[in-house]
């Protein structure tokens, strides 16, 4: 009824190739952007920002980054935690070395630094594939965590080995540190997420994205039709690293404010982001959002329902959380192996035909 292509005429190539060709989709997208940018900042409080929205935004960036690598280019990576750590520590070093520079620049530089590291660890992907590549990136994960624990230069020789974000601003508005207002940290992360999602969406629709997908689907065939695997694989690692670096930088500076590499960026972080990508949907930008939302929100919702509404003991709820999240993951993967993005796609198909399915 509402969701249809009929009557939605395109009169130019630009219109025909836009991101959301269906009018309803487009307006929904504008509405989400408007609410996120114009409504939420005015109603947000510390709890919503720090417990729900910031982790969601930041994990969504990480999930987009990993999705490019795993979902679009088909290069399995278990090094996400380590690469996020590179972003965080690069951001910390830039923040302390150049205090007067805007926070935007620090985060972008941290992303760039991670892209370089990611490419270096992506080099083996030219020779090895599949599980073996996963093991190689696993090595990156352990090596990077070990490195940041081992070399005191990275944490400015602090006694505890922790890094803490000093106060930094953008145009005079505090972004990091305890006095940063909730709306500012939210907006800062939201701007990065929007930019990342736009870039990712357009990259994946263009030449680079198509070469990634060609490599993913069959690398030998791709090579024969003229896709350069070196370029395709390394650009995938670079772009993915850039996004993951940004998310690591934000995770440390804006969200947590102080991190310890082994605890914050351990192997469990790599798995968490990988689960987000798998549950959300491989090879889908929307899937990255859905997966991040699912794994960030679900524990909070379960906790609120269990502890605050039902009044159960906290440990029971924490155990139930593990059981329920685990069970839901299994149910999801059996019912819809292509993730939440596929559910969404199916729902859209059904809506197109509704109310006349035949």
């Amino acid at each position, binding site marked *: 009824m509402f969701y249809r292509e009929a009557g939605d005429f395109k009169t130019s190539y630009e219109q025909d190739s836009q991101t959301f060709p269906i009018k309803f989709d487009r307006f929904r997208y504008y509405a989400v952007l408007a609410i996120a940018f114009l409504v939420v900042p005015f109603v947000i409080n*510390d*709890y919503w920002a*720090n*417990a729900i929205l910031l*982790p969601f935004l930041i994990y969504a960036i990480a999930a987009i980054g990993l999705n490019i690598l795993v979902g679009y280019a088909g290069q399995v990576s278990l090094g996400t935690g380590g690469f996020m750590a590179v972003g965080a520590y690069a951001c910390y070093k830039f923040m302390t070395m150049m205090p007067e520079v805007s926070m935007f620049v620090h985060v972008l530089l941290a992303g760039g630094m991670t892209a370089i590291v990611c490419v270096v660890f992506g080099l083996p992907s030219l020779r090895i594939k599949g599980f073996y590549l996963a093991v190689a990136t696993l090595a990156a994960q352990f090596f990077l965590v070990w490195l940041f*624990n081992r070399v005191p230069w990275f944490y400015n020789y*602090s*006694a*505890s*080995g*922790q890094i*803490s974000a*000093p*106060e930094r601003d953008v145009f005079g508005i505090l972004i990091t*540190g*305890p*006095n940063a207002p909730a709306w500012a940290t939210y907006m800062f992360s939201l701007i990065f997420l929007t930019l990342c999602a736009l870039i990712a969406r357009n990259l994946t629709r263009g030449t680079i994205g198509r070469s990634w997908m060609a490599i993913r689907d069959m690398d030998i065939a791709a090579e024969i039709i003229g896709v350069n695997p070196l370029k395709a694989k390394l650009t995938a690692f670079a772009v993915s690293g850039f996004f993951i670096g940004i998310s690591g930088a934000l995770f440390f500076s804006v*969200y*947590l*404010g*102080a*991190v*310890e590499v*082994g*605890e*914050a960026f*351990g192997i469990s972080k790599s798995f968490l982001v990988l689960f987000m990508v798998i549950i959300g949907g491989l090879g889908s930008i929307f899937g990255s959002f859905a997966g991040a939302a699912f794994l960030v929100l679900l524990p*909070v919702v379960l*906790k609120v329902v269990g*502890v605050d509404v039902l009044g159960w*003991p*906290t*440990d029971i*709820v*924490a*155990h139930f959380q593990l059981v329920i999240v685990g069970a839901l993951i299994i149910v999801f993967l059996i019912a819809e192996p292509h993730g939440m993005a596929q559910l969404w796609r199916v729902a859209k198909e059904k809506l197109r035909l509704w109310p006349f399915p035949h």
Partner: protein
Amino acid sequence: MKMKLTTLALSALMAAGPAMADLVFPSLSYRTGPYAAGGIPFADGYADYFTLLNERDGGIGGVMTKLIECETGYNTEKGVECYESTKGEGALVYQPLSTGITYQLIPKVTADNIPMHTMGYGRTSAANGEVFSNVFNYPANYWNGASGVVNYLLELNDGDIKGKKLALVYHNSAYGKEPIRTLEELAEKHGFELSLLPVDHPGQEQKSQWLQIRRERPDYVTMWGWGVMNQVAIQEAANIRFPMENFIGVWWSGAEHDVMSAGDAANGYKAVTFHNVGRDFPVFNHIQKYVVDTGKAAGAGDQIGTVLYNRGMYAAMLAAEAVKTAQGIHGTADIDAAMMRDGMQALEMNEAKMVDLGMPNFGPTFNVSCENHGGPGLVGVTQWDASSQTWSLISDFKATDGDVIGALVAEDSSAYAAENNITSGCN
């Protein structure tokens, strides 16, 4: 329907309003995960003492206490979530029982003007109250613990440990790294050799560390461990037949559950402590009578008198005493977080008070001041007797090396002040 929902929400808010008048103590506990073995008894002790105050005395100064428990799983992200969700409820003091979460919360509590008490953990240099206005770590901190270990070794060796070898087995995190600076200074001062053996989270794999100990044959081993790491370390030490009486843990590595699993092999294992052990105190009879027997205990009620239960209860007792002090200073029974901070800063613990509370000689006597948030730093040593399954105090609470620690505290806190543009001073 919408109207109804709004009214419902409003009435819920109104109902929550008067509840704010309680004295709210958030308990960021962890009853799950690899550190739960230590988290559970501490959380139980913390909760049971406040329940006792409510049941026996009708709260503190006539105002009931309210404990909000939030599960962190020793995870910093969940810790932040817990902090944000509880701070709006009128939280008086935070005790996260995690050095990682402490580091995260130090700037936040300072900005929100809520005090935080990190008893025997957290950032050691928070002892300097001129820089860390809202963070307290009385009565003792990690560096006192490190110095306490060395002092005890000095005592055993008639004041000379030159050339002896001491190995530190530590949790490779902010927590485990804390004592290294002090131990390095002390190694230089007393001429002993220090070797460092990090163990990664969660600490179940320590074969290589203990192999190294077996090879290097240090005279003494000290440990900064927590959770499952402790049990594994003690088992490994037993496996290589390292003499247990030369193995000294910090206070977080010296509870019943840490030594039980190694059985008789753990006999003689030592740990430093800053409070007394055992259940031979009148307060436990009260807890038994008012809390456990009435079915209001936070846990199963079987942890009473264990090391960490005592510590949780001690933490709650110090918080309650600070509330009383704050009530006295501000002349109101219904205090807020800022008043609580004043109360903590003016806290005086003397023997008469502790006898009144049913805890004679339970902890050291001390006065907190703005300059010194760290207390006296007196450290005793306990030893495990595997046959009777008890810890007993074998060396009384003694002063630690104030010169070395004081200098390090001043250095570290001034670095923090410079990094964060804090003008130090008392207000």
